[in-house]
């Protein structure tokens, strides 16, 4: 087996810097979930390879990388059409170190249903040379909130065993920053421009994770790449549960959100600190449970930052900072507060 195309990067300890994920037939066991950063760097290699052509500073590959650190063994990745798909497989190159399929825009969950069913059928007939093969889907907000919602809902209802990771960059970034069901209110996009009459998008973001909770699938969570340990733990849980799991991961886009390329992690942190994007998980047994930073904020409300902190670093919200638009910012704050309060009421681990 030769992988001549993998560069030999000098590594003294552990594994080479880049490798294909090879699970020979008969491979047994379970890859450990490593949470110590040093050990992680020495032992784990991402399922996404360098040389991909996503923009500098894009959060999507960080989410994929972190998620793949939590894979437990043989895994097939399904990708909806979108930035991630387009930029990681520009023929003749692929950035995927694991088996990967892109079918179309609106059907990632249906495609995953087929992959998962094939795995089951082959297992049943003794043709699957592994104890389990996991199926993980990556879809953007367009492919999840909008055009792909039907196929996602159908697959969730049918109970296929896969983890769907939504990387939500809050607009159709692949086609050039058009508004989606995931775009927040007042955000500028090319189809919700800030004009003399309209202040950007005029509708709020669709509560996609709550919609998935309403399906009462085994596991739903939110995550950001900034809260990387939280994200990895959630991915592992999502893979481990039997049946569909859904993770809504906020994925900043420096071009669409109009911020410096260095701020992908910073802006994700601010999204959580302002409670614009609270971190939680839900299972039918435990209900909503706040996690990581959001749990800390619930316990110590003083930590909660005003929405300006999230808005001020992003050009898409620039107009909200103008004095004449203070009322819009206030409206956004009220919306964030209301959603957060609602979540606090539902969260079983929030202080009463």
């Amino acid at each position, binding site marked *: 087996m030769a992988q001549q195309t993998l560069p030999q990067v000098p590594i003294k300890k552990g594994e080479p810097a880049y490798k294909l994920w090879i699970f020979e037939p008969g491979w047994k066991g379970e890859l450990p979930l490593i949470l110590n950063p040093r050990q992680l760097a020495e032992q784990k290699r991402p399922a996404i390879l360098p040389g991909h052509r996503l923009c500098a500073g894009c959060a999507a590959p960080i989410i994929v990388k972190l998620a793949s650190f939590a894979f437990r063994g043989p895994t097939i990745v399904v990708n909806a059409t979108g930035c991630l798909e387009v930029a990681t497989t520009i023929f003749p190159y692929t950035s995927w170190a694991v088996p990967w399929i892109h079918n179309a825009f609106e059907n990632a969950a249906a495609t995953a249903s087929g992959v998962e069913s094939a795995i089951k059928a082959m297992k049943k007939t003794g043709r699957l040379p592994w104890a389990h093969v996991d199926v993980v889907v990556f879809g953007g907000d367009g492919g999840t909130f909008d055009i792909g919602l039907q196929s996602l809902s159908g697959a969730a209802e049918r109970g296929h065993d896969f983890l769907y990771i939504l990387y939500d960059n809050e607009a159709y970034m692949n086609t050039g920053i058009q508004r989606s069901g995931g775009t927040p209110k007042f955000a500028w996009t090319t189809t919700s421009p800030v004009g003399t009459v309209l202040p950007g998008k005029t509708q709020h973001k669709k509560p996609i994770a709550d919609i998935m909770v309403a399906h009462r699938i085994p596991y739903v969570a939110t995550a950001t790449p900034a809260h990387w340990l939280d994200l990895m733990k959630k991915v592992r849980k999502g893979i481990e549960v039997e049946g569909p799991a859904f993770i809504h991961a906020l994925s900043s886009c420096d071009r669409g959100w109009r911020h410096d390329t260095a701020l*992908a992690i910073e802006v994700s942190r601010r999204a959580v600190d302002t409670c614009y994007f609270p971190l939680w998980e839900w299972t039918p047994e435990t209900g909503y449970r706040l996690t990581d930073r959001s749990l800390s904020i619930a316990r110590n409300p003083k930590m909660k930052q005003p929405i300006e902190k999230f808005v001020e670093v992003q050009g898409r919200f620039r107009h909200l900072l103008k004095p004449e638009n203070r009322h819009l910012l206030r409206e956004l704050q009220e919306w964030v507060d209301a959603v957060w309060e609602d979540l606090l009421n539902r969260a079983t681990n929030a202080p009463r």
Partner: protein
Amino acid sequence: MSQPRGWKELPIGAVPFRLSTDYKTGDWRALRPVVDMNKCVKCMLCWIFCPDMAIIWDGEKILVNYDYCKGCGICAHECPVKAIDMVPEPSE
């Protein structure tokens, strides 16, 4: 890079035949991260957050694989001890 292959030499099903590690994105970079190992506390956050898998931990120190680093600056921004500087690419 050689001539693109003719159709008879391509695998069927349109599966890519090369890994993207053959495609060097390092020339997209305007600023390059430079790691000061004297300041580095080896927390690995740069390795964890690098979107281009361009940070390498060789067991002792942090290296940057400039073949792929696009110079986004996330590593420098996230470094808790400011051990990474973004410096202009030398123009040769």
